[in-house]
């Protein structure tokens, strides 16, 4: 069974690498100074799409089987003396594996049509598959060093997707992504060095394995180390102060890439934070210390600031990017409160936000693909031309804002309740207040599109009413995601109990 883990992660990585190698081989034979390869024919393209779909499906199947069929583990060679590359499945793994597979599959199907717009499919799918494989590896990681390895690889594998269209802006955004992520990774590494010395093991143990005896007298530096790790891994999650890459990277990346970036890759930061705080150090070590206080402050600031910036932003994808910044900090806030209820809320929000944001980005992509519209102001009257799309958008928005019975409401409820009962002083009520304000702002930046879309008023006069609905291959994934956003809110019990159980084991 352990071999399944390796196989599921390795398959997409190898497939992606093979795609890239075949591209290089084609280039070697190509003529001309730029060694340009001719655009593939429709037939070749269909074959490529089929290959990608098959790989994605098989990996997803293998991964989910490995994750859901009980606790497994497998140890590979030693990376450093005493620290092996080690994989292990547990509750968190199940969550991330399932979510990743869902997001990647649906975005993948969507992208088969979308990428006609962008071109250079082989290169894109090469890195798309590799990112998926690496993310699976990250989810399966059983100790800090393995996790760090895949964390670094994830940055390297996903960066080329950001600079896909090759414009100067894209290259700059990709560099920004790279360096913020690396900065964050190195901050994390700083902490890993110290945890190696003072924890019994770097493997993930529910509740952590900090050796309090060894750490006697060294609390100062250890707290600093943990704080830097939180900051560092928070960079990928878009937490202040290392969030600036997100708004830069999203507008320039192709929409399917934005979807997986916001949907899952940013959650890798969340995963890393969870692992560090709850499975290596242990929440008891930082509860009540300045680390917790600062962390909570930062997350709440991010929540507020993200929503504010989103409200003022005019480019739709950038608006959604700021929204991601804000929403992921909801998750991080819930984690920082260090109470089981809040953690449940966070984990719920991981699921819900991934699904919602994925669909929102895909929809934004539809707007670009079908009508070439990137700015919010240009979307007046869009409802007349693509009603189905806009309805999906509306449902997803409602879920994100937190209107019952949509899913966002459930996660926000748990977050607020967790904050209030956690005994974190003023944060207990400041937190929910900020969440509420943010919800209002969310409404403010999401709903006008729906309203103006369906009821354009004076601006819509004179606009054509031709049908610009996207083809089914683009619409269906979006619809599935939007539907899930609502349905999971109606029937959350399975999820809630699953996550409560996880939270219970670590606290």
């Amino acid at each position, binding site marked *: 069974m352990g071999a399944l883990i390796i196989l599921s992660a390795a398959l997409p990585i190898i497939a992606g690498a093979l795609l890239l190698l075949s591209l*290089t081989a084609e*280039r*070697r034979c190509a003529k*001309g*100074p*730029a*060694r340009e390869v001719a655009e593939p024919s429709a037939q070749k393209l269909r074959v490529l799409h089929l290959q990608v779909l098959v790989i994605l499906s098989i990996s997803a199947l293998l991964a989910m089987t490995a994750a859901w069929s009980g606790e497994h583990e497998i140890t590979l*060679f*030693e*990376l*450093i*003396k005493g620290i092996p590359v080690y994989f292990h499945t547990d509750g968190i793994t199940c969550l991330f594996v399932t979510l990743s597979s869902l997001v990647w599959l649906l975005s993948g199907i969507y992208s088969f049509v979308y990428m006609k717009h962008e071109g250079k499919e082989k290169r894109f799918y090469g890195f798309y598959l590799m990112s998926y494989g690496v993310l699976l590896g990250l989810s399966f990681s059983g100790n800090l*060093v393995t996790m*760090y*390895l895949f964390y*670094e*690889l994830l940055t*390297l594998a996903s960066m*080329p997707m950001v*600079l896909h*269209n*090759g*414009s*100067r802006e894209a*290259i700059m955004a*990709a*560099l920004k992504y*790279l*360096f913020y992520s*690396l*900065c964050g990774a*190195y*901050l994390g*590494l*700083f902490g890993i*060095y*110290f945890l*190696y*010395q003072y924890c019994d093991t770097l493997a993930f143990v529910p509740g952590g394995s900090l050796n309090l005896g060894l750490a006697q007298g*060294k609390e100062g*530096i250890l707290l600093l180390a943990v704080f830097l790790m939180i900051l560092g891994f928070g960079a990928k999650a878009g937490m202040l102060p290392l969030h600036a890459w997100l708004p830069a990277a999203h507008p320039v990346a192709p929409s399917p890439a934005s979807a997986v970036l916001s949907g899952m890759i940013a959650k890798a930061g969340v995963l890393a934070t969870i692992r560090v705080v709850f499975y290596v150090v242990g929440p008891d070590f930082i509860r009540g210390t300045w680390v917790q206080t600062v962390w909570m402050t930062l997350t709440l600031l991010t929540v507020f600031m993200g929503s504010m910036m989103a409200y003022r932003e005019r480019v739709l994808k950038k608006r959604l990017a700021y929204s991601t910044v804000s929403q992921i900090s909801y998750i991080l806030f819930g984690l920082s409160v260090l109470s089981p209820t809040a953690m449940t809320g966070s984990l719920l929000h991981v699921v819900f936000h991934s699904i919602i944001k994925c669909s929102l980005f895909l929809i934004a992509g539809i707007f670009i693909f079908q009508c070439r519209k990137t700015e919010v102001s240009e979307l007046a009257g869009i409802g007349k031309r693509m009603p189905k799309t806009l309805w999906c958008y509306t449902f997803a928005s409602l879920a994100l804002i937190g209107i019952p019975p949509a899913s966002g409401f459930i996660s926000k409820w748990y977050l607020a309740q967790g904050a209030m009962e956690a005994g974190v002083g003023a944060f207990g009520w400041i937190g929910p207040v900020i969440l509420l304000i943010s919800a209002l702002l969310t409404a403010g930046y999401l709903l006008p599109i729906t309203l103006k879309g369906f009821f354009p008023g004076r601006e819509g006069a004179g606009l054509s009413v031709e049908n610009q609905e996207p083809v089914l291959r683009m619409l269906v994934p979006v619809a599935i995601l939007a539907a899930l956003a609502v349905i999971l809110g109606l029937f959350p019990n399975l999820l809630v109990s699953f996550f409560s159980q996880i939270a219970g084991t670590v606290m």
Partner: protein
Amino acid sequence: MNSVILVIVVLLPFLAGALVPVLPFKNRRQMMVYVESAVLLNSVLAIAMLIAQPQDSFVLFRFTSDLTLSFRLDGMGTVFAAIVSVLWPLATLYSFEYMKHEGHEKVFFAFYVITYGVTMGIALAEDVVTMYCFYEMLTLATLPLIMHTLTREAILASRTYLYYSLGGAAFAFIGVIFILVYGSTPNFIPGGVLDLAKVGDRTNLLLLIYVLCFFGFSVKTAMWPFSKWLPQAGVAPTPVTALLHAVAVVKAGAFTVMRITYYSFGTEFLRGTWAQTVVMIPVIITIVYGCSRALKETHIKRRLAWSTVSNLSYILFGIVLMSPLGLAGALSHMIFHATMKICSFFCAGSVIYKTGREYIHQLDGFGRRMPKVFAIFTISGLALMGVPGLCGFVSKWNLVKAAVSSENPLAYVGIGALLVSALLTAIYMLTISIRAFFPEKGFDYSTIQDVEDPNWMMLLPLVIFTVAMFVFGLHSGPVLSGLESIGALMR
């Protein structure tokens, strides 16, 4: 094995090198074959010696009854000698292709081979006087190599190199004298040779002398504030810069610092004193300084030279932690960095050789036309950054492990410096790769139509180094155990 092998591997290159200008070669190819065979023969002998591990010492010459030129092989010497003897033949192979374009090859290769012998002399020196003598000789032997192109820049660079090196040796000399006077023997003994009874209450004097000696020997490692000479020496042909300034000369400097710290003065005497703090500070400064200068530099070889400045201070950082783990970490970075840096330099050299372009901004789009070279360059960049799976991560890990367990607050600052440096390394190495593989949209490839991958003589060493980086990165266990056992010899 008889200990005479020790002196053979030192003197054979002297002899072979001195004969190069004299022997009548019919054509260039003959000379190439001679030089490569000489170097290869010496390496084979050296590796045989390292495996056989002769225990006795060999006295070559006596200045006076207690001052001798003598050689002996121990653990640390094995490590350095191994690095040198493996890398020299590969570098020589690479330089044949490269030097086709330059001229005056006979003198060049003569001194190139002699330097091999001198470096082995440093590795195998049994006592501090022998090491000092060969250290001075190293400056002189490498001087004509830097001066080779005889341009104004080269002359200036060689002058700077000379002043700095001989100046550093002058201060190091003071330390040598003190070891002779206050030590029970001039030989290298793990844990140090200071006769504490003789030292008495002059501890502070001895510590001051150690600091002076440290600074003196560290000039060759281009530690701040003595860094200027190394980037300037980038004007030399790439095989020189790569081998000597990434491997032989600068690593010899680090090696000598290791010897005086662990084998002459002794860490027991030095650890925890103000001397340790005083030497740690410039080391930490250099770690970040080297990287920030590399960032600003746009000439490829000078950028890599500044990167060497920074990485050498990683090794020095391990040394000044003055613990067994620190020594093991320093030795591991010595080995791994040599591999990574020589690989990067050779990639840069291939680019310069094939296209004559020396500046970063001229390399846009090269990734498409020289994919092999740039792929390898990217891998070496990732290794330098410390991505797990490659060797840089392993040596950094060991250095930091030593720093964390030393529980010295200044060492913690050092860890921060190491990570800042890693980030800066990522920036200055990866931007080159990204520009090469992903030039801006609308880049006109016809401007680089002539660019191509070099031939096997240049590519083979590159491939070997890449494989080595992965092997060390994924399977470093045996090497690390060996290094830790050397470290364990220290108290």
